[in-house]
């Protein structure tokens, strides 16, 4: 991902959702989502930056791994922007899904989904929509989109392909010591 060339002025809504209230480090700008500490940003072509930022937060809330950086969740949801670019109906489904999350959050006294501070409160919002097409599209995409990123396998200890190393016959297939 690229770093945005300039940070344009933000709307009030974007400022509200720019991370501080959410306990998240996502910065939503005009045309981009950036991260306040990780060196990445993305510029969605079809979905709004607010929707993309919401998807990133939603991805973390669906499969929370606290030691995995936002960048990997961003990669995991990026394909929704591509699908939205190819299919206006898909784009509408994603944008309206995000609006529903924000509306529910608003009804519960939060600024929006991103502005809902505690994971527990966000998860309650997600539980209320988990049978809907929008949620299932996001969750379903994450199973492969997140866990099939080789860059995060190390976090789980998973070593991936072994053939190139000659298998594990001489590399610890039976090295368990605690039994």
């Amino acid at each position, binding site marked *: 991902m690229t770093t945005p060339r300039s940070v344009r002025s933000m709307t009030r809504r974007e400022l509200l959702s720019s991370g501080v209230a959410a306990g998240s480090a996502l910065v939503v700008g005009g045309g981009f989502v950036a991260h306040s500490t990780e060196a990445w940003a993305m510029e969605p072509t079809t979905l709004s930056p607010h929707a993309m930022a919401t998807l990133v937060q939603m991805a973390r*809330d*669906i*499969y*929370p*791994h606290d030691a995995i950086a936002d960048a990997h969740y961003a990669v995991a949801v990026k394909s929704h922007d591509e699908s939205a670019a190819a299919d206006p109906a898909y784009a509408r489904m994603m944008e309206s899904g995000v609006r529903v999350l924000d509306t529910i959050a608003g009804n519960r006294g939060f600024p929006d989904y991103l502005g809902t501070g505690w994971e527990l409160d966000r*998860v309650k919002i997600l539980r209320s929509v*988990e049978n809907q097409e929008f949620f299932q599209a996001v*969750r379903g995409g994450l*199973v*492969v989109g*997140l*866990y*099939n990123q080789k860059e995060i*396998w190390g976090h*789980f*200890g*998973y*070593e*991936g*392909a*072994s*053939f*190139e190393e*000659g*298998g*594990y*016959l001489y*590399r*610890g*297939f*039976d*090295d*368990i010591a*605690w*039994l």
Partner: protein
Amino acid sequence: MSAPFDLTDDSVVVIIGTGAGGGTLANELAQKGISVVALEAGGRHLPEDYINDEWPSFSQLAWLDKRTTSGGWRVAKDFSGLPAWIVKAVGGSTTHWAGASLRFQDHEWKGLTHYGEIEGANLLDWPIEPAEMTDYYAKAENKMGVTLTNGIPGLPGNNNYKVLEAGARKLGYEHVSTGRMAINSQERDGRSACQQTGFCFQGCKFGAKWSTAYTEIPAGEATGNLEVRENAHVLTIEHDDGGKVTGVVYADPAGNRHRQAARAVCVAGNSIESPRLLLNSASSMFPDGLANSSGQVGRNYMRHMTGSVYAIFPEPVRMWRGTTMAGIVQDEARHDPSRGFAGGYELETLSIGLPFMAAFLDPGGWGREFSSAMEGYENMAGLWIVGEDMPQESNRITLHAEEKDQHGLPVPNVHFTDHPNDVAMRNHAYRQGAAIYDAVGATRTLPTPPYPSTHNLGTNRMSADASKGVVNKWGQTHDIANLFVSDGSVFTTGAAENPTLTIVSLAIRQADYIAEQMNQGML
């Protein structure tokens, strides 16, 4: 040298499918000097092509043609388009299988006799006596190089096995070992010993695991009597006015159709495609499909009572290192109705990689309950439960009324609902599996639901009585003398054991029968 046979050559035996049944039968017939054309829907992939990466490998090997599902099984909800995880390639699912090679227990050949009538179950005895299979099992074990037979040492146990073994011993289980596996523990037949790579399900890159793709098929081709035509997807079987089959129609990758004439046809497309092909071959003479006078084609679909137990420990296990199915507990495989169910089950270690764990641990699950289990991946051990499930007439493969495949033919629908006996057995196995791991300090156990089916059985079952099944004791259809079924769909009942060794043994036996019938001028 493989022998190219003419499309109009009606002296050839046509075999549809090149997996455990079809691939073995093709080689056995070729070795006897019989001309064989084997038609394989998939392409030819060999060890150098296999991929140590679960999703790309799945795309390379899995049967992904359109299928639908129905019934009470959770697969219909979570994987509605993927009822089975099997392979479309030369070698069929012997590319993907884990290698467990267990003989049936004697009583399992006679399910109805030993279990009695069970409500809702369509139990039947196999028309085969256990003693008839002894020599064929021995031939299959020798051919496949099964460990702990023929003087072949067992495989060394990996970490996942060591955890299972220690827990099982603490529980008092006695029949615990690295099992009988068609994976070389030492070099044999020009194939390497197991290098403990993991990824048995993705095709063994060392060729240490027996697969027809690089054993039976090239051996048959070397005789000059076998031609394997890959990417040849059989659509229908044709017959003459006398009710004998005369050839098959298949599509090539461009969608062009060809007709291969045949002296006899052997169907070995796995238990979903085989009945589908018979049903799709319906004609005015056989309006309900070929060989279906009993109405049993497609019925009695079995998939083994399965499930998994994963367990998380305080320390690393790294279960993915080494053979996927690295050991077995067999104490629960017996028939002992005092446990509350008929038949028995095996407990076999299993490991799946992180990408597949995310897909299969708790399909649809999310939130910290799910992700914290994934966090425990490095410290996980795992086992797979494989037990006998009850044949039920209503569990069946049918042709979908509207959905068509890429060739314009109705897709198969796979309908399955657990029998109460299956549920009782699974719950017992979940408890025992968890107890094994608890005994060695598991801090969390995860009873994991069945995956899309790998053991697909029973949809063209064997029967002595032609009104109760599709094929006789030789796999020859009751209705059409030169039409055979040569895969796991002939299973009358499923037994507790992984089916491949029995499929291979039956194929060797069927080859003897076909050759004998030819010599006698019957075929």
